[in-house]
């Protein structure tokens, strides 16, 4: 690469950075003030691309394009305000992170709404009036629109900076980012503040989307891509820091542009195509930054959040009633193979679904173990599922290990991964911990995806079926049942052991726990490792149940599914993950079969559940039970 080519790629990177910054700034603002992890942020961005496309093509010309961009930002801002008022405001008192569930449902609904409104085809907008051509720089042609983007990013940064530092609104935002309860106590109307911040953040997402229509087609995949990018930028820059977001956007975009620019390099003994590394580059940057600077480049330690949710009940051992019911369920499950064979309502599919539900239960229970009692919100639990699944499949494929040995070895691999990643992760807390786990999970995913020779790349590993007698679904079901029951009981046992108390003590007050001699970091690290180990069991079972494993199975979607299961069931209860996983897995199976717009239906059902059970399904029933005077 010549010097000119290098410098020119830096310009390319800068224009990409502006795009990244606009998506990320809104997310950062919203999180800073409301502490909501807004999964629908990418969807708002996508709406921006579609709405701006409509203006640019239906009205057309300068008004349609440039006027359309402004109008789009306003419209998406209004949509954001509506989401906050109609939906999120109702669930601020729910346990931390619960709002994530609502925004997850919105992702599903908005995607199907866009499909319904704009159709399935990609829609490429016109070139920007006034910026159609290219400008000659360094002997190369740079699109003039890229130059415009290079300028607009810092301009928006400046405008936001002035708003935050010079206006009363900005002062309130900064104050709320530091301590929102205190802001409320001083008489500021929090409802209005939250709504306006959400609207501003949404408008920025809409603006970001609208500005991209001259460069990329509006399409239905952009929501999750934009969301992923935005998360990385926000975390690298520091949650709530706008200049940090710009800095992070520049670093990430430049690293990617340079990877592309370097291209294929022959080192003599090995040839590396750097253009393939754009996939993993951003997550490597994120992991490095979080390890070196736990609060991001320009972030500060998260202000104390005094939860406005109901205080959490301490966990108690199972009552005789619960034990009896558990036994009944267990007996029913053991009889399931017989039921499945009966001609009246049986179908062998019952067992297939049963296996999936049980695997989901192990997955969700292990996530809940660190998320609820451990207080460590892992956004990357799929990594340990993946290590287990790939571990089992690859041991069979490369070492021809027998089924049993592979199933035992799989969790050990997940354990090793959890020990490694957990060691770094427990040094952080709150959303930074969540994001570091996400970064690790994405690195695992990207490694699996890129390392074709070993992992099979995008195809994954196929043909790993269990040997007889486990090839019969009823035998495999019983095996899964035994392991699932063992896993759930083991996790429960650990929680009622001194170790479990120590873990919860560390969650509730790290300072006091340290004072009475608990090594909080170590306890949490071990908790993390146990969760990884158990999750690996689920992964191994999954690989053999499906006969194959591929990168999709361990993608971020699975991590999010896990969060949804735990939150749906109720994060503050011990049976919550079991119920949440069962409901989610069965719901997914049923809903996917029902309708063309199954995602919207799924989203709508989750929204109803969210509004009806703000503490999760089990949490809500438990609260009712307590109200009625029962003991839990």
């Amino acid at each position, binding site marked *: 690469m010549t010097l000119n080519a290098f410098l020119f*790629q830096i310009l*390319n990177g800068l224009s990409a950075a502006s795009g990244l910054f606009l998506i990320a700034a809104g997310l950062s603002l919203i999180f800073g003030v409301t502490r909501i992890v807004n999964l629908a942020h990418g969807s708002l961005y996508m709406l921006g691309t579609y709405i701006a496309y409509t203006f640019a093509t239906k009205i057309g010309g300068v008004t349609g394009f440039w006027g359309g961009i402004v109008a789009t930002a306003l419209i998406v801002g209004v949509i954001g305000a509506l989401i906050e008022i109609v939906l999120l405001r109702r669930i601020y008192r729910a346990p931390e992170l619960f709002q994530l569930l609502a925004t997850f449902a919105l992702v599903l609904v908005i995607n199907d709404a866009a499909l319904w409104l704009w159709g*399935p*085809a*990609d*829609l*490429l907008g016109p*070139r920007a009036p006034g910026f159609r*051509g290219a400008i000659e720089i360094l002997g*190369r*042609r*740079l*699109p003039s629109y*890229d130059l415009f983007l290079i300028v607009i990013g810092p301009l928006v940064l400046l405008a936001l900076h002035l708003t935050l530092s010079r206006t009363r609104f900005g002062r309130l935002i900064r104050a709320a980012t530091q301590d929102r309860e205190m802001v409320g106590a001083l008489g500021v109307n929090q409802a209005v503040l939250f709504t306006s911040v959400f609207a501003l953040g949404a408008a920025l997402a809409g603006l970001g989307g609208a500005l991209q229509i001259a*460069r*990329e*087609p509006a399409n239905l*995949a*952009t929501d999750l891509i934009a969301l992923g990018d935005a998360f990385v930028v926000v975390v690298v820059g520091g949650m709530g820091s706008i200049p940090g977001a710009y800095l992070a956007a520049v670093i990430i975009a430049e690293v990617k542009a340079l990877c*592309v*620019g370097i*291209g294929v390099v022959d080192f003599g003994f090995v040839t590396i195509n750097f*253009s393939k590394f754009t*996939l993993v580059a951003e997550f490597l940057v994120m992991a490095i930054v979080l390890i070196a600077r736990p609060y991001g480049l320009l972030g500060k330690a998260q202000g104390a959040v005094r939860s406005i949710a109901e205080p959490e009940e301490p966990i108690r051992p199972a009552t005789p009633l619960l034990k009896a*019911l558990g036994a009944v*369920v267990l007996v029913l499950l053991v009889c399931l193979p017989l039921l499945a064979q009966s001609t009246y309502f*049986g*179908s062998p*599919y019952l067992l*297939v*679904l049963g296996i*999936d539900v049980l695997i989901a239960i192990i997955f969700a229970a292990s996530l809940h173990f660190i998320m609820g009692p451990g207080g460590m919100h892992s956004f990357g639990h799929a990594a340990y599922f993946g290590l287990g699944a790939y571990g089992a499949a690859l041991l069979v494929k490369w070492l021809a290990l027998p089924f049993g040995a592979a199933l035992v070895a799989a969790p050990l691999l997940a354990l090793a991964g959890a020990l490694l990643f957990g060691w770094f992760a427990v040094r952080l807390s709150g959303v930074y911990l969540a994001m570091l786990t996400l970064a690790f999970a994405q690195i695992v995913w990207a490694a699996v995806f890129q390392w074709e020779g070993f992992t099979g*790349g995008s*195809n*994954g590993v*196929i*043909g790993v*079926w269990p040997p007889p007698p486990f090839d019969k679904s009823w035998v495999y079901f019983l095996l899964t049942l035994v392991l699932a029951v063992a896993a759930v009981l083991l996790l429960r046992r650990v929680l009622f052991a001194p170790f479990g108390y120590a873990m919860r003590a560390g969650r509730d007050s790290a300072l006091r726990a340290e004072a009475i001699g608990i090594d909080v970091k170590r306890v949490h690290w071990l908790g993390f490792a146990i969760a990884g180990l158990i999750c690996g069991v689920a992964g191994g079972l999954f690989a053999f149940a*499906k*006969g*194959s*494993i*591929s990168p*999709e*199975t361990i993608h971020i979607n699975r991590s999010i599914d896990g969060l949804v299961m735990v939150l749906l069931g109720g994060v503050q*209860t*011990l*049976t919550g993950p079991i*119920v949440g996983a*069962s*409901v989610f897995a069965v719901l997914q*199976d049923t809903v*996917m079969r029902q309708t063309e717009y199954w*995602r919207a239906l799924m989203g709508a059902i989750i929204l109803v559940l969210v509004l009806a059970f703000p503490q999760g*399904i*089990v949490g809500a029933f*438990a609260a009712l*039970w307590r109200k009625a005077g*029962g003991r*839990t």
Partner: protein
Amino acid sequence: MRPTHYMLALATALGCAFAAPAFAQDTIKIGELNSYKAQPAFLEPYKRGMELALEEINGKGGVLGKKIELIVRDDGANPGEAVRVAEELVTREGVVMLTGTFLSNIGLAVTNFAGQKKVFFLASEPLTDKITWADGNKYTYRLRASTYMQTAMLMPAAIAANAKRWAIVYPNYEYGQSAAATFKDMLKKAQPGAEIVTEQAPPIGKIEAGAVAQAIDDAKPDAIFNVLFGADLTKFVREGNTRGVFKNRTVVSLLSGEPEYLDPLGEETPVGWIATGYPWDKIKTPDHVAFLTAYQKKFNDYPRLGSIVGYTTIKSIAAGLAAAKSTDTEKLVEAFKGLSVTGPFGTFTYRASDHQATMGAYVGKLALEKGKGTMIDVKYVDGASVLPSDADTKKLRPSAD
């Protein structure tokens, strides 16, 4: 805590699972699974194609005296999910065969499932060579021309360009990787002097289009081989056009002439690219005209390539069932060997040697007419003409039969 709600959830779960649909004995059930939500641009027209074929076949009384009933499922764009859906179709719905899939890895997972559970599977769209070759099995057939075939169809044009310096750009997953590998292989054989000066392999759906276009330009190639499609292609073409990357360079491109990927380009269509595709308004064969008329009459819209694939899939299944005179899996496997089917692209056969259909594709030059992308100088390339011989095929299928 109160556990009754767990029972409630479980009861609901069981209830849903038990609610098996009533069995209709007078239909032949075909199970179809595809990534409808992930790939709607291709698969919505595909679904319409299937509907049209189904209407035609059932209108004439179906096959074997029964109507064909299609049970369509979304596979969640995820191989694990796809295997579960396949199992559901087989065990609960009692389908006699499986068909569908779009993405290569899902096609492979279902192929493997079909081999393991001895279920007949007609892969309609996934392009990976492995479905019929490396990982092929007795129970799996494939309709669509594979990556290898599509690349081979473009080779005459690539060789005619007589370029010394080639750049390759492909999405970094199975389809892109195998297309690039096949291309390099064939180029080396035909023109040993040609050199690959750069290879860009952006992640699918996440191309840094400006940087990639620039890196290709900086490598100063004489010609470019493109495997990108969808949103990646659209972004790459706009950046490349603005930056003058395609000027005076031969570009040979896979799939870019398919309406699914060509139409979004509109005025941005890169004129002169040599591509495989489906110029629906330029094909005047009687088979295609009949299909086109029926399709436009039913849907008031023009067909995309997906429509062709969906339509021909169902036609193939009907022909296979008629030839097998049974819904028995083993008989179907036998019946598809050398089965001859007539679709909009004319008559083709399912090869007995590797279970690949010889349905071909159109090759032509991209052009701009009235602000819309189209193809000119189109020529139909028969799939049989680009496939290796039956004897060579045997070596490619180690695990089959």
